[in-house]
């Protein structure tokens, strides 16, 4: 690496040295090396990668009749020891997901029928809708097809979950299911997803934090040693001779599996060391030779042993994350966690000793960022039906307080935001744990980098609420404060909790059913209870009561569904293998896989339940109250008729609905419904303990893009929406264009019901034009918005920037964007009102600024 800028020492935590901050803010992350690597990534087409699935199948055939965890471990070992590896020219951080720059890794064992259908049609499109964008080598196609055919033949065509559900809950239960994605996995192609009331995501171990500071700092050999010691103890105690205990044998194989898997990752790293040495011997370029020798030295050492310097710490995390992803590419929601904390001791030591410069550190992190983004996923359902389209959710979490309340923000927190902006890739998503003692200068930096990124990143989470949630469950502060963002808007303790699955009830749909006396217009079936014909209702409270009765009924169905799914899937699925078990070191003494409760705290084993569309419901209730009962502008019969016709021939009624009060304007008329419905829903959701653990469920408000899918099943509703259009995004967002009183009003509406401690996924999206973030004073004002939001017990806030694309859209459809404000100084006006040449000016400015 090139000669560097001066180092400012010492490196401190909390409020960092302003000169260090300046150095970090002006560091050039995108060196020629990283620019070249990024260009290669941009130019590469996604390509289907088959080596891993073939190796998996080969191993599976060799381990017939063995315990499932052991088979899973052996199949992992087979891949790690035999998959093709490479080191690209100029790379410093190594370990590729596949042999392609953008490779779609997949396992036929998980979804053979879908992959076979792809092979037969020749379409490996990531969207499965328009033009095929993924290529496959013709020879690989033949191999993949044969592999898929093998699994179709060997996978039990009987779906135990479906059989059990039908047996226990009746055939009509299927009319409640939002999509068949989860329960049909591997046994059929999904059909008719655009209906239903609740939705489940994630199977065993979706959205977890698998990387831990402890494993990084002590090395894989330490974990292997622990497992082996436990095995020696079992032998010494004669536990295996005790034929009366099946548990002992199970534990034995679990420990054996853990050893195999950790050793497999170490072997994978050593293969890279060998390759680097080989390449070093061949190269004539002395600079590259030295780099390759360093890479060899690094990979020989980590992740087996504790890192000796910052480079090794970055490389070790890269291997850990890659291994977790390769273990189960289909369920790869592996959060990276608190890397500013993991890496800090190494960074501090290296900077202070002068071994490393800040620029070199930034380049190493940037190099890892590029490696993370090489991952592609062979999506077998339509992109818009996915919760988080195409995302692997490798979330990074920064800052936060330690057990004694000290601010953990450090130079790496600053630097990672700089890397995020300059490398400029859609992933990883970055989260900042906000608290009141945080240095204002850091918040300004974070918001400025958010602006430069184009919005959305980093998001801010409420540090105090997150920790309090765990404390309230009796978890000691040492662990309670160690949480990070995971999965799709969730959060978890570092390797100490295991997520089983998440269920969302779509309240927008529940309201539609309540408005039809339990009937679902989409399926043409009576899916809910008879709660009365709304035309006979005398007050809005009667409608609200009907809604709550329906909600209660569906939550019970959801709980039953979860119980049956969990017990059946675990008992019968060949895919319930080790997964998430490998880095949970608590599993070793417990002798249980994490899914079986081997993690430190059983809470995470429990389901997450949630609601989607609560703000929509507030708008529905307010509109009905306003139009039917208070102002008497229409009758319930007229309203229902107009909605059932999807407003065709009833535009006047739809316009009345659009003009009715809307959530997000700090208007108590409608916000009152948001508060009531939130409170009652929380009560209903938590009234049924998890049937497996007996714990009360976690609350969750669902996925980043689920609102599109879920909206497809919901008909025309009293807020003026058309059938099938998206419901509101995020957990506390207003109707698009419905909030017209600005950001403070939206925050007040959203925080009238403080986020319950046990709630995640409540993303509060704020939309700004770039002008609002263009000076330090204005950034400071936005920072104070975060402060007020958090003080009012909001959980998650993020700021998006109006894009040029969005402005162009507004220009084409002015009616749909009539409230898009443009602000310049004391002047403010609506964008759509501007004459075309001024619109051009603003679009151009936006494009220039967003870059």
């Amino acid at each position: 690496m090139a000669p560097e800028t001066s180092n400012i020492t010492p490196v401190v935590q909390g409020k960092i040295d302003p000169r260090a901050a300046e150095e970090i803010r002006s560091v050039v992350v995108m060196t020629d090396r990283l620019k070249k690597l990024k260009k290669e990534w941009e130019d590469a087409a996604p390509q289907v990668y088959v080596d891993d699935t073939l190796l998996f199948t080969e191993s599976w055939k060799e381990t017939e009749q063995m315990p499932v965890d052991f088979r899973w471990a052996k199949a992992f070992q087979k891949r790690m020891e035999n998959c093709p590896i490479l080191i690209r020219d100029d790379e410093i951080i190594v370990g590729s997901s596949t042999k392609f720059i953008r490779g779609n890794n997949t396992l036929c064992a998980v979804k053979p029928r879908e992959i076979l259908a792809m092979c037969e049609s020749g379409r490996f499109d990531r969207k499965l809708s328009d033009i095929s964008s993924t290529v496959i080598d013709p020879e690989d196609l033949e191999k993949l097809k044969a592999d898929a055919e093998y699994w179709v033949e060997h996978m039990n065509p009987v779906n135990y979950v479906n059989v059990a559900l039908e047996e226990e809950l009746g055939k009509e239960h299927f009319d409640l299911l939002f999509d068949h994605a989860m329960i049909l996995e591997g046994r059929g192609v999904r059909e008719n997803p655009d209906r239903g009331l609740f939705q489940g995501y994630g199977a065993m171990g979706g959205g977890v934090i698998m990387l831990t500071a402890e494993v990084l700092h002590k090395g894989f050999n330490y974990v292997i040693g622990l497992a082996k010691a436990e095995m020696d103890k079992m032998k010494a105690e004669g536990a295996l001779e005790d034929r009366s205990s099946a548990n002992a044998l199970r534990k034995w194989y679990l420990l054996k599996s853990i050893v195999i898997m950790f050793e497999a990752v170490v072997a994978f790293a050593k293969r890279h060391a060998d390759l680097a040495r080989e390449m070093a011997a061949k190269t004539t370029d002395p600079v590259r030779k030295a780099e390759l020798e360093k890479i060899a030295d690094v990979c020989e050492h980590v992740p087996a042993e504790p890192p000796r310097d910052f480079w090794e710490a970055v490389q070790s995390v890269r291997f850990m994350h890659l291994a977790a992803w390769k273990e189960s590419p289909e369920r790869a929601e592996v959060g990276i966690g608190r890397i500013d904390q993991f890496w800090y001791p190494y960074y501090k030591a290296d900077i202070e000793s002068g071994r490393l410069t800040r620029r070199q550190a930034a380049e190493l992190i940037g190099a890892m960022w590029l490696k993370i983004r090489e991952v592609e996923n062979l999506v077998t359902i339509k992109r818009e039906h996915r919760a988080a389209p195409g995302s692997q959710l490798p979330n990074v979490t920064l800052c936060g307080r330690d057990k004694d309340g000290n601010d953990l923000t450090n130079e790496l927190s600053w630097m990672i935001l700089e890397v995020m902006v300059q490398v400029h890739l859609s992933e990883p998503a970055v989260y900042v744990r906000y608290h009141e003692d945080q240095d204002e200068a850091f918040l300004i930096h974070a918001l400025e980098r958010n602006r430069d990124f184009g919005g959305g990143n980093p998001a801010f989470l409420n540090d105090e609420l997150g920790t309090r949630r765990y404390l309230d469950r009796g978890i000691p502060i040492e662990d309670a404060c160690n949480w990070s963002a995971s999965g799709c808007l969730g959060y978890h303790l570092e390797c100490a909790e295991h997520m089983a699955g998440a269920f969302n009830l779509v309240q927008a749909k529940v309201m539609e059913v309540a408005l039809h006396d339990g009937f679902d217009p989409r399926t043409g079936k009576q899916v809910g209870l008879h709660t009365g014909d709304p035309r006979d209702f005398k007050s809005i409270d009667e409608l609200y009561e009907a809604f709550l009765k329906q909600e209660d009924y569906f939550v019970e169905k959801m709980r039953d569904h979860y119980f049956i799914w969990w017990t059946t899937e675990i008992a019968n699925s060949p895919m319930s293998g080790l997964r998430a078990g490998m880095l949970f070191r608590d599993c070793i003494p417990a002798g249980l896989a994490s899914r079986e409760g081997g993690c430190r705290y059983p809470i995470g084993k429990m389901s997450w339940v949630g609601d989607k569309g609560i703000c929509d419901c507030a708008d529905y209730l307010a509109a009905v109250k306003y139009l039917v009962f208070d102002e008497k502008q229409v009758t319930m019969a007229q309203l229902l008729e107009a909605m059932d016709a999807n407003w065709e021939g009833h535009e006047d009624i739809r316009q009345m609905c659009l003009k009715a009060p809307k959530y997000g304007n700090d208007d108590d008329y409608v916000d009152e419904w948001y508060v009531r419905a939130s409170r009652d829903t929380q009560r209903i959701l938590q009234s049924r303990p998890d049937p497996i653990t007996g714990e009360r469920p976690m609350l969750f408000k669902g996925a980043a893009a689920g609102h599109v899918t879920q909206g497809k099943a919901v008909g025309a509703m009293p807020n003026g929406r058309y059938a099938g259009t998206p419901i509101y995004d995020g957990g506390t967002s207003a109707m698009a264009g419905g909030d017209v009183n600005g950001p403070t009003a939206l925050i007040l509406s959203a925080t009238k019901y403080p986020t319950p401690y046990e709630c995640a996924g409540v993303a509060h999206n704020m939309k700004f034009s770039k002008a609002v973030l263009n000076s330090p004073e204005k950034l400071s004002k936005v920072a104070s918005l975060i402060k007020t939001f958090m003080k009012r017990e909001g959980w998650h806030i993020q700021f998006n920037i109006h894009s040029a694309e969005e402005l162009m859209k507004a220009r084409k459809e002015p009616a749909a964007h009539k409230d898009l404000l443009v602000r310049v100084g004391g002047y403010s006006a609506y964008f759509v009102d501007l004459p075309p040449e001024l619109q051009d000016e603003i679009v151009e400015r936006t494009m220039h600024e967003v870059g």
Partner: protein
Amino acid sequence: MAGAKGTVFNIQRYSIDDGPGIRTTVFFKGCPLSCVWCSNPESQNLDPELMHRQSICKRCYRCVEACAEGAITVGPDGIEIDRDLCTMCGDCVEACPHDAMRITGKEMTVDEVFKVVERDVDFYRDSGGGVTLSGGEVLLQPEFALALLKRCKEAGFHTTLDTAGQGNTEGLKSLLPYVDLVYFDIKHIDPKIHRAQAGRTNEAILRNFKEVAASGVPFVVRVPVVPGFNDSSDAISDIADLVATTSPGATVHLLPYHRYGQQKYEMLGLDYEMPTADAPSQDFMKAACEIVKAKQLACKVTV
């Protein structure tokens, strides 16, 4: 009761350009000046006015049917409004299903305004913000302004008065004890040029400026830099001289002209008389800033 009511055309929450922190700005309707470059023409007339938003009008002509006065007719480019016949009854606003008709300006009591203003109290506290009275010209409604300011001070809010200085000096003096910061516009030193482009001479403005400077209330002088009016070194220098003599070391903000207000004239049925002009160049704004700074004043260009 006099002063209990005033005419307001907008209450804007999350105002971030009108003083420290996060603020709510109350825009008073009515202004004795009629600056040709005004970007908020709806602020000039004291009475409520009908605005028609051509961009989202669907030409359903329900407003035409709804208007009992026959003030709305169908023309070649959509509807046409005869503003002499219009009585501001609001029937067309009710009838419009598309939100394309709006009445700007509303008579409000101090209580009504305060109810909106106090909602953002948490944000004022956390950001060091408060309330700004702007316009229009606040000094045109001094009793209303005084009552509102008193109310805000009782609640502990920071208050900013944003004024063009065109009004009764006694009225201004009555407000100052309740004001924490004044934004005072000075447009031109030459009374004739001022009269030609802003509709009145600047005597009252200059007199009131001295009053503010003598009062001890912190203030910022704001100068809109308008092409063909005061975008010359001399004009800027003259303003700076006055400020420097009256209050050495004071702060001046220069605001470059923009033409984003143009379409609002059309919505109000008014003509935009500002000759087509581009915003002053960045180079000129920098030079102007240097001129002001040379007089030992603080200066920056804001948008």
